[in-house]
């Protein structure tokens, strides 16, 4: 009987583009070097910060990143693009299954084939301004089909503070999994705090467009 080890040897070329990623059990409160803190659910696994060159993000999942993913990060403030789409793109670049290599090509194909890729353009549902991390921000629902055709739903929260967009999102297959952990995401969202280094908290005058 062939073993998994034997298969790994037979597929050496493929396995070389599947490095181990640094998932670890959630330890609760997590302070990001990108200027936010968040408390992730117990029993979930967390993609560790600093595991790769895109440090500063946080991603968590219980059953696997294609089935439910809560993620947060900070990026440059979007220009004309919808902040929700900007956050979604940042999440899509996360190495949920792989870490980036020097060339990126093979790994990029693998990452793009998760929920993060899209076969249909993401549709952003209209939403109203809301408090996010102690700032005035937005909450948007986004829907798309992944590259396999699987319908995916996502909730994106974000706030623009100075030159940065602070965001967190929840993404899961529309069937079964989205409803399963939406309440958990809302609990996590209440723990999200924006804490930009060297900046006093500011009250945004208006919510960003979305």
């Amino acid at each position: 009987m062939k073993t998994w080890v034997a298969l790994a040897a037979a597929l050496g070329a493929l396995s070389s583009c599947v490095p181990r990623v640094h998932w670890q059990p959630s330890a609760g409160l997590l302070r990001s070097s990108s200027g936010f803190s968040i408390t992730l659910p117990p029993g979930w696994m967390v993609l560790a910060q600093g595991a790769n060159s895109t440090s500063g993000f946080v991603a968590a999942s219980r059953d696997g990143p294609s089935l439910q993913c809560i993620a947060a990060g900070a990026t440059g403030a979007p220009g004309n693009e919808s902040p929700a789409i900007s956050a979604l793109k940042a999440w899509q670049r996360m190495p949920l299954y792989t870490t980036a290599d020097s060339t990126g090509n093979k790994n990029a194909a693998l990452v793009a084939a998760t929920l993060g890729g899209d076969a249909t353009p993401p549709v952003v549902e209209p939403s109203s301004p809301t408090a996010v991390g102690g700032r005035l921000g937005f909450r948007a629902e986004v829907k798309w089909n992944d590259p396999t055709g699987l319908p995916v739903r996502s909730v994106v929260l974000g706030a623009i503070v100075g030159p940065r967009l602070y965001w967190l999102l929840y993404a899961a297959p529309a069937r079964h999994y989205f409803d399963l952990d939406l309440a958990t995401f809302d609990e996590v969202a209440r723990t999200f705090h924006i804490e930009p280094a060297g900046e006093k908290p500011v009250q945004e005058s208006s919510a960003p467009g979305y």
Partner: protein
Amino acid sequence: MSGFSKERALIAVALLAGACAGPTHRVHPEAASRWEGLRTVGVVQPAVPVYELDASGNLEEKPDWTEAAENNLAQAIASELTVRGVKPFSVVSSMETEPELVDAMLLFEAVTRDVLFANYVVPFVTPHSGFRYSLGDLSSLARSYDVDGFVFAVGQGQNSSGGRTASEVAKTVVGALLAILSGGGGAYEPQFGVDWLAIGLVDARGDLLWFGVYDSGGGDLRSLSSATNLTRAATHEMPVKVPGPQALPKGGP
């Protein structure tokens, strides 16, 4: 159904490649009690594209090969259910006639990816939560087909082209000669295609009660014997239904 793309197949194979030696099946914590309730099970047409692997290592899907493989695997899965005391019922999904079944199949592909990743590559599942995956409530579909559950299967087949076979054989011969001349060691190991199959058994609630996966090299899923061998290996640990008071005929008390 042949919508299982090359890209997705590569993911699963890559994840398999990163997996460790160990049991190749997983079981829901309540599988033992729920298994007895499965009398008739719908066998959803597997999604197993078959590719030609050329001398350069490129893959090209062959739709007629895929169709033959998927039909063979459906037949082999039905046989494995029968010997376990479960009556199989063939279910062919299509977006036009059964969109919910297609949605469930797409979700099974995602579940397979994460079962492989979170159970074989990274230890996601804690002892407290156990192996709990779902395709969502399938009770209305089960009623419409008059079944108690469904079997879903995804995978991939690879057949070496004539050029690749010749090339690998030549490399093996040359490698063997070099090994002899150099005093042994370093012989070339030929790289032919690898087939793999993941099978999931869900009840009407949609809960994944049993999951098995296996890989095999040198087969040809266009032949029923290869498809049967791969299916037998993937379902090797699937339990056999024990005849008894609980195994009542459909419609019984």
